[in-house]
């Protein structure tokens, strides 16, 4: 910046030598702050002083709202006039597991209406656990001429008709990412709605959908979108069709295959392998639905540079996984089904030293009689071979305290530790003791821990450990655990950075709930269901803390005084007005 410019600004009417206001003109400050991407950094910046607050709000282009009810669209629009990208999260996470009533809320439409007026140049919308209707999608498609990226994760309320509207009207679309939604799949014709002149798509993910799409339309679309880097197909796309797509899109960085199981001739197999080997940029592989082991070698050429392999829809055996992983030395993220069993996980430990994230999902989670899957042995084997592990999600049917202690000793860098022992309240199967020491070891050893999900038989001791040691913990999920209010009190008292707490089926009552009185305003939300909290406790909380929304969801046939499901969150928008009758706002 020119010294003369600086001098000019100093001489401007606003600068007063004696009070030493900011020596930067606003434009400079805004320019500097526009380089800040992290919304947390931006929040910190906005608290420095009024000038910085203003500079920050004028320079912000992306807003992240972790709870759509914590603020209103009008308030957002007033504060941030130049937003081009919005990320919104709605329902409490337990809605993924059917614990939240259907019509609970989190509808996007009111937001879209405000955005259409205030942010006509909106480009990106990323929604998680929101309700969105086809009408809203159509409204979105026609209201924002520059619209580029739509990502819907775990949302519901819409059908493929809404997608058709997006495909038809959004001429500048670069991203359409439809993941794990409750979508009403009325057929695949939406894909044919992209005009022949449309070439801008870079990300297309329709793995969520089950119906057949018009393959010719897809082939042409992929052929003309030369910048496409992410393509995630649905199950209806066959291996042979996959090969045809890949031939025209060797630049793909992320591929979600369709079904990986039909009969292939030798020639077709060779062609597929050849098409895959041309994809030198590919670092992520997904899908592989119903993968047949004999075709997996076609993937080997791609495997050498893969960093993320998602096999969680492919029921591979341990030997099949082992053979595949022998070709994946650079793997950092791996998702598998527990059909690979402990032996498969041993292969992970042997072949993937760079692994940072492992997720093991259960193939038969609800079948009590079929007890294969993974045990503590598999997890331990991975920990010996993969010291860089930071993120684990592990579903198993048995675990021991000793195993977990070994695991965290091998991998002290965990930031996300989510262990789900599938039988609620199950103790250490060898010693018959509670799993307290396991999670004690986790929190004592893994000082960077941000997210923890506990399971198994746990007494208050677990929570004492958490409160005492988990100083960086931000998210805690608890189910079927604890002995008394004291457990929750330890957490509320000790975990200073806690932002999200979700509890189900624990013996925590009003004393526990109210012990967090001072804390809830610094948190995003609290969920407590099937605990011992009463309506009176909730009313007291609501009364004492007017800036919290305290919502109770009652179940049919339950006692009037029991608060079956409680959802508490901070909000500057006041109590919400769109709650259904089953949700009481206190």
């Amino acid at each position, binding site marked *: 910046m020119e010294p003369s410019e600086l001098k000019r600004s100093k001489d401007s009417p606003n600068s007063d030598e004696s009070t030493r206001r900011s020596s930067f003109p606003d434009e400079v400050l805004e320019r500097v702050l526009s380089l800040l991407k992290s919304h947390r950094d931006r929040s910190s910046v906005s608290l420095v002083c009024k000038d910085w607050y203003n500079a920050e709000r004028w320079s912000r282009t992306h807003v992240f709202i972790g709870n759509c009810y914590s603020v209103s669209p009008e308030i957002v629009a007033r504060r941030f006039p130049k937003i081009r990208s919005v990320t919104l999260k709605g329902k409490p996470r337990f809605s993924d597991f059917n614990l939240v009533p259907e019509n609970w809320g989190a509808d996007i439409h009111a937001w879209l209406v405000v955005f259409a007026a205030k942010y006509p140049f909106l480009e990106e919308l990323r929604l998680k656990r929101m309700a969105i209707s086809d009408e809203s999608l159509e409204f979105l498609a026609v209201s924002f001429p520059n619209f580029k990226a739509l990502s819907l994760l*775990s949302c519901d309320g819409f059908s493929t008709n809404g997608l058709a509207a997006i495909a038809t009207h959004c001429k500048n679309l670069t991203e359409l990412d439809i993941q794990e939604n409750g979508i009403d799949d009325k057929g695949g014709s939406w894909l044919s709605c992209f005009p022949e002149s449309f070439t801008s798509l870079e990300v297309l993910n329709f793995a969520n959908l089950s119906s057949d799409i018009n393959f010719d339309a897809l082939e042409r679309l992929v052929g003309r979108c030369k910048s496409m880097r992410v393509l995630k197909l649905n199950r209806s796309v066959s291996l042979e069709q996959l090969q045809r797509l890949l031939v025209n899109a060797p630049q793909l960085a992320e591929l979600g295959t369709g079904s990986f199981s039909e009969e292939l001739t030798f020639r077709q197999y060779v062609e597929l392998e050849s098409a895959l080997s041309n994809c030198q940029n590919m670092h992520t592989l997904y899908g592989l639905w119903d993968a047949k082991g004999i075709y997996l070698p076609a993937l080997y050429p791609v495997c050498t540079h893969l960093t993320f392999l998602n096999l969680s829809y492919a029921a591979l055996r341990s030997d099949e996984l082992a053979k595949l992983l022998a070709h994946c030395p650079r793997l950092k993220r791996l998702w598998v089904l527990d059909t690979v069993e402990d032996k498969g996980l041993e292969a992970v430990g042997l072949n993937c030293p760079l692994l940072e994230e492992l997720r093991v999902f259960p193939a038969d989670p609800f079948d009590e009689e*079929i007890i294969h899957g993974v045990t503590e042995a598999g997890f331990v084997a991975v920990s010996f071979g993969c010291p860089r592990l930071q993120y684990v999600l592990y579903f198993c049917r048995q675990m021991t305290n000793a195993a977990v202690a070994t695991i965290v000793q091998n991998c002290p860098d965990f930031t996300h530790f989510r262990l789900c022992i599938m039988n609620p309240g*199950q103790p250490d199967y060898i010693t018959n003791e509670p799993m307290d020491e396991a999670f004690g070891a986790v929190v004592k050893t893994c000082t960077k821990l941000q997210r923890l999900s506990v399971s198994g038989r746990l007494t208050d001791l677990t929570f004492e450990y958490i409160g005492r040691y988990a100083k960086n913990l931000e998210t805690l999920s608890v189910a079927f655990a604890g002995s008394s209010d004291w457990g929750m009190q330890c957490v509320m008292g000790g975990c200073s950075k806690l932002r999200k707490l979700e509890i189900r089926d624990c013996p925590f009552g009003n004393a526990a709930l109210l012990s967090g009185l001072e804390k809830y305003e610094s948190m995003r939300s609290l969920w407590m269901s*099937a605990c011992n909290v009463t309506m009176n406790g909730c009313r007291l909380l609501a009364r004492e803390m007017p800036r919290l929304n305290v919502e109770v969801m009652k179940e049919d*046939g339950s006692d009037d005084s029991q608060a079956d499901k409680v959802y508490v969150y901070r909000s500057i928008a006041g109590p919400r007005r769109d709650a259904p009758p089953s949700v009481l706002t206190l």
Partner: protein
Amino acid sequence: MSKPIEHDYIGLSEQQLPSMEKSSDKKDGLHLKDTELRLGLPGSESPEREDHDQNVLSLKSFVSGAKRGFSDALDGGGNWVFSGGSGGGTEGLFSPRRGGKNNGGKDLSGLDSGSVLKDGAAQKPSVVQEKKPQVAATSSHGNGNIAPASKALVVGWPPIRSFRKNTLAAHPPKNDDGDGNAEAKLGSGCLYVKVSMDGAPYLRKVDLKIYGSYKDLSSALEKMFSCFTIGQCGSHGVSSGDGLTESRLIDLLHGSEYVLTYEDKDGDWMLVGDVPWEMFTDSCKRLRIMKSTEAIGLAPRAMEKCKNRT
């Protein structure tokens, strides 16, 4: 439906885990207690547990498995693993209750029984996630009005997202019988049935559509279950495919120790092999490798049914 017979061995298999296997000769209740699924109880309830080698599946324990009253099986089937089954050798070993579902010494002390049951009680449609045949029957053996909550009836547990749940339910993972022939055909091609074996710690699933005859099915089952009868197993009892073990099992099967039976659409248990293969695959709902001693009485019924059908 003839749930009782079905649950007889369900109870056994549910109560046992390979790693918890004990080579004990204990009779009736205690024996089962040692091998029950709920991992805590064997250690706590049977201090006389001698064998600490958790990985060896003892032939004796399996094959000598006493026939347990189906109340046990039902209760075992109906509950969370931790509940129930404490207590020495008394009838109703696994009944939910020794004093109520949620207590008993080592179990979830402090867990609010009210809340547990609220979620578990199958009172509203939204609660029932997966249909479990034994649940309906369980309530008649439970502790009075407290219906033991089957894991499957606990809403939202285990925490799996709907998309994944629905995907897995619609297209079950292919059966890992080890010979690589199992094709998981999409949609209409699958006919998965559960196969249990008396004395084995857990069940397997087979896709009947991939077999063309009784012979194919029989040899596949032999491979699958051979390890249970020999006492050699990997960490989970995955079939080892060892030649010796297969022939041993074949001997067992062809000898008089085991017979292969199936439950048909009407809920009746029949001997496998009496009807043409296609008729069998159409009507078979599940398979059970049953001890011969218990199969007495089946043959005549199978014949009768056949006659009635034709």
